[in-house]
C-alpha cells in the first residue's frame, strides 16, 4: 500500500529568514536566488513534488 502526503507543503525554501517560520514543515535557507532555485529543484526531484513560487523570496514544494 502506498502511504504518503498529498496536497501538502513538504518543504519551504527561502532567502528571507524573517518571512518564514514553521513548526512542522522543514525550511531550507538559501543564500541567493540561484541557490534557492537549485535547492528547490533537488528537493522536488527527491520528493517528486512540484515547486511553487510565492513571489516573496520563498518557494514551497507541494506534492499533488
Amino acid at each position: 500500500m502506498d502511504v504518503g502526503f498529498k496536497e501538502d507543503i513538504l518543504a519551504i525554501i527561502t532567502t528571507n529568514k524573517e518571512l518564514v517560520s514553521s513548526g512542522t514543515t522543514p525550511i531550507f535557507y538559501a543564500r541567493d536566488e540561484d541557490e534557492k532555485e537549485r535547492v528547490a529543484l533537488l528537493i522536488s526531484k527527491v520528493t517528486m513534488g512540484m515547486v511553487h513560487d510565492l513571489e516573496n523570496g520563498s518557494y514551497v514544494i507541494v506534492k499533488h
Partner: protein
Amino acid sequence: MFDYSYIIIPAIIVGIISRISMLKSDYRQYPSYPQGVFSHFTLGIVSASLGAVAIPALAEKEFSAVTFLALAAQQFRDVRSLERQSLDNIEPTELVSRGTAYIEDIAKAFEARNYMTMLTGLVVSAIIFFSEHFGVPTYYAIMSGVIGGVIAILFFNFAIKRDTVSKIAEVKPATITFEGPLLLINGIVIMNIGLKASRKIYLEKGIAVEINPYDANGVATLANMGQRQAIQHNAATLLGIRKDVDEPDFTPIARRDPHTGKVVMAIVTMEPDVNCLVEAVKSTIVLESAKRRPLDSKTGRKAAKE
C-alpha cells in the same frame, strides 16, 4: 438440435462478425492486442451463441434454456467489472492518467458490445425461424436472416457511436504567457510554476488550446473533470508527453474559465505541433458519464437564454 442448425449456425456467424466489427484496437491499443482482443473475441462467440440458441430452445419448449440469457447478462456484467479493475490497476503506471470517468466509459462499452452481439444473434435466428415458420423456403429464410443481421450490425454500430469534442465545442490554438510564476493561457490562470527552467521550457516548447463550447450543454459537459482528464490523456497519447514521473510541472492540466465555461489546456509534447494538438482534442470522445444536457429541460433553456 441439428434440426435447427440452419438457424443457429448463421446466427452465430453473423453475431461473431458483429463483435469483430466493434473490436477495433486503434491508437488507444485497448483492448490490448493480441491477448485482450483474443479474449474478447472468444466472449463474442459465447454471446453470439447464447443469442442464437434462444429461439430454437423456445421452439422446443425448453423454457429453462431462456434462463441462460439471464446468466449471460450476469456474465457480461462481470466483463465490465473486470475491465474496470484491470484499467484501475494500470492507472498508476500512466504518465497522464485516464481518469475514473474514462475507465468507466471503456468498461461500459465492453459490456454493451457483448449485449449487441447477443442481440444480433437473436435477430438473425428470429428472422430465419419466423420466415421459415410462415413458409419461406429455407435458403431464402437464411438469406433474409443474414441481411437482417447485417442491418442490425450497422444499426447497433451507429447507435453506440459516441460524439467527439469537435461536436460540442470549437477548439483553437491558444497562447502561453507567464505572470510571475503563474502560467496563463489566453489570460486564464492555470497553475503556479516555481522553477525558472520549467517556465522556459513551457515558453519554448509548450503548446496550448482553447476549447469553446457551442452551447450550455457543452459548457456543462466540459465542466466535468472526467471529461477534461480524458482530453488530457488523449492529447498526451497522440502527441507524446514530454515528462517523467519526477516532473509534475509538465502534467497537462485543463482548467476552466469560471466566467464563460471555456476550457484551456497547455501541454509540453514530444512533437510541439499545435495543429495536431487541436486535432487530438477534437477527436477525444465525449464520455457518456460526463455528458449533460441541461438544454433538454425547460429550466435549463430558460437559464441559458438569460
